[in-house]
């Protein structure tokens, strides 16, 4: 069953976006596509959440954006990670790993 945005932990979507963008410049459609593919269709990002998040991250200076042509020659807005965003991603990743590890520990130990 796909997990929609509302089920995602707050702040997780931002981290996922940063992670995807870290792989290379990509447009909004590309991001939603990759999240779907990499999570094997478990995570579905609604456009209604994706674009506000993208613009928020851009405004905070974690993402940089520029206009370019897509593979099919359409005009698209490409996002890439800024240095500030890279730092943010690192800290969020390590936080997430700590949290996930802790949660996993509890789940295992409590069994």
């Amino acid at each position: 069953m796909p997990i929609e945005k509302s089920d995602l932990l707050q702040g997780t979507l931002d981290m996922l976006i940063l992670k995807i963008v870290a792989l290379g410049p990509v447009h909004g459609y590309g991001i939603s596509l990759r999240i779907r593919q990499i999570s094997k269709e478990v995570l579905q990002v609604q456009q209604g959440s994706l674009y506000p998040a993208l613009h928020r991250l851009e405004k905070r200076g974690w993402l940089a954006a520029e206009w370019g042509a897509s593979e099919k020659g359409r005009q698209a807005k490409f996002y890439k990670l800024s240095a500030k965003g890279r730092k943010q991603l690192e800290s969020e990743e390590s936080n997430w790993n700590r949290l996930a590890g802790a949660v996993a520990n509890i789940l295992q130990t409590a069994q």
Partner: protein
Amino acid sequence: MSWWKSIFPKRASDAQMNTELRFHIDELIDENIAAGMSAEEARRRAMLDFGGQEKFKEEVRDVYRIRVLDATLANLKSAFRFIRKSPTFSATVILTLALAIGANSAVFSAIDAILLKPLPFPQSDQLMRLQQRHPKLSIPNPFVAPIRLEDWNRLNSTFQAITGYYTEDISETSAALPEEFTEALVAPRFLQVWGVAPALGRDFSFEEGRAGGPDAVIISDRFWRRRFAANPNALGQKLHIGNSSYTVVGIMPASFLFPDRDVDLWSPVPVDVPYAQSRESTWYTAIGRLKPGISIDQARANLGTVQDQLAQQFPKTDAELSVGIDPLKETAIASSRRSLWLLFGSVSLLLLIACTNIIALLLARATQRQHEISVRFSMGAPRGALIAQLLTETFLLALLGALLGLLAANAASGVFRSLAASLPRVEEIRLDARIVLYSLACSVIVTLLCGLFPAIRGTRRNLYGSLNQASRTQVSGRNSLQWLLVGIQVALAVTLLSGAGLLLRTFQELGRVSPGYDPSHILTFQISVGWGETADLKKLRQKTDRILEALRSTPGVEAAAISVGVPGVPFKYQTELKLVEGRAESEPKLFADNHLVSASYFATMKIPMLEGALCRETDGPPSVVVNRSFANAYFTDSQVIGHHLEASNLGYSGSAEIVGISGDAREAGLDQPPVPTVYWCAPVAEPGTYFLVRTHNAPMTMAETIREQIHDFEPQRSVYNFAPLEQHFSDALAEGRLRTILLTFFAATALSLACIGLYGTLSYNVNVRRREVGLRLALGALRGQIIRQFLWQGLVVCIVGCVAGWVLAAASGRLLTGLLYGVSPTDIPTLTAVILLVLVVAAVASLIPATRAARVEPMQVLRNE
């Protein structure tokens, strides 16, 4: 809403957003077609998939809208919550600011009304005061001869018109009892110069300004309401003044209060009457209105040329004269400018002290809120948002303080007006939009001044990690900053206190001055006399004598005299005198203050005669008495008595013999040392002359008796302005008293604020160090040591502050020169007393937290850890 769009250029970003979203939809359509749908179906599904575009476009826009409004509202809400949650802290800040901003706004309202706003006449910057100046007189003659005024008006090319006026108190006798009025007698063109037309009726006609023309008056709004109950039928009515009757031709609007708020009537002086043709008798206060676009320098040059022409034409009278031109507003307010700026300076220092106090409070507060702030940080709040929130809190406090302050200022303005009754334009002081704006500006400045630094410091990133530390185990930094702020407050308070101390000493010194006469038990009053009566001096003199005789025979009266000015009240009539016997060119010229008095003046005032005799009140050649300063200044090695003086412009013809020398008296004011003075025996009560009566009992108890006595044989005259002489002294010092009272009040407030600051900082320090104190007590420290340590901590800061304050006070003392009497601006006893006072008060303020520190129970504190 247009400002909204201009801040957030919606269209540009909307177009970009549309492109971005269209790309996404196109890709979805491609994806659907690839999955085997028809083009139509693919598009429909893609749109469906995408959901309500408008809704989330709005969400994206939200990201850009920094959410100014929302954020402000949220900040305001949280600021209100903050104020509710910490009522003591908020009340302290609000009251401190209310006091400081209120006092500041009150003084500013006076400065605004008196110094900044233009005079209440159309194009009032064109109005100029003109004086005829004589190079040898230190004070210009304030008056202008009528004939010269006409010459100036006719010959100049830079003024629209020049006019003049003088006032006299008259009796109007059409009612049952004679009533006293103030009448302004005016030269032609009077209303034209002011640019104000009567509210009802008309200006004077040409004939009414000529000898033999109809007698006409224009009445003031106040008089119209009082006498005619504001009935328009007043126009054309007759008023009986002296022996003539005058027709009311106009009624001025209520806003026209010139020469002052007490004027009831204006009537024209015919330009061509014989007594107005002398070039030597000067009566008019001259006012001119410049032509548009003419500068004051052009006018000075132009009238200088005019006066040069007159000097050639009338060398005897006009050769040495020049023309002084100053903006009317300057001459009206110049005297109070320094007092007002001094008050504004001190009240701004007070605001600065209040701000310093609040900075210290906010800093202490920020330390307590570290935990809250780090929580907000860890939840991703940007620093800017936190600073904005802290500033909103400060602004809300400042705004509440300013509002409360405005209310206080409004309530205090009545007190201010009564204290400041001697200031010019004081009736124009009121709370208006400009004052409200000023208070708002004050609160914005206070917010930035007080709020910015603690907000920036309180949100430093290194606090980020403080979540991990329990705040109670945290020993705060050395808080040297708070101590610096306390030191600044003490220094500023010392500065204000020394200013107040010096002004108080001035008053004390003035109280000790011996004026050279006995001012107690003297009743002063005036009796209405018209200038017309001076045409027959002999008759007027008989009448004066009769009044004086009647006064002397009244039971309870010891002596009676007349004098043109009131002794001890600034009234200068300085002229050059000539010695008939001649003087060597090398000897200094004779300049002296002139006083016109009756011979009984010396006995009434108890001014001792040192040599010679009293002046003679005879019709023969006049005689004068000079004071000791005059004799010492001009006759070092020869006998004074027996010489003859001549003063052409006093209205005396011929020479006057010096018959006596009197003791020195402070005629021009208690703070004015005696200057060479000549007393002319003038037993004639000219208009405006004061009657002085020495009474057995309290002076005012005699007022009614005297009024009835005079009414018995002079029913046409009104007797008015009864006041004890000491009241005049007090009035003459009113402005000095105003600034002394206010400065003392500000200084006392400053001292209490500084003490609150000291107390607060030390208490905070004691709280933070409770554990350390407990530990030391447990290890055997004596309580006395603890008290001494904290007391000393507070006092060291105060001593440093006092030294800095001393330097500041010495540096700013020069601002006070001229306002002081009998005490130097760097008076050591005053400064020492101020510093002792501050140290004692500071010691008391420090002692309370210090003893609290010593009462710490070691076991309890240590157990709590």
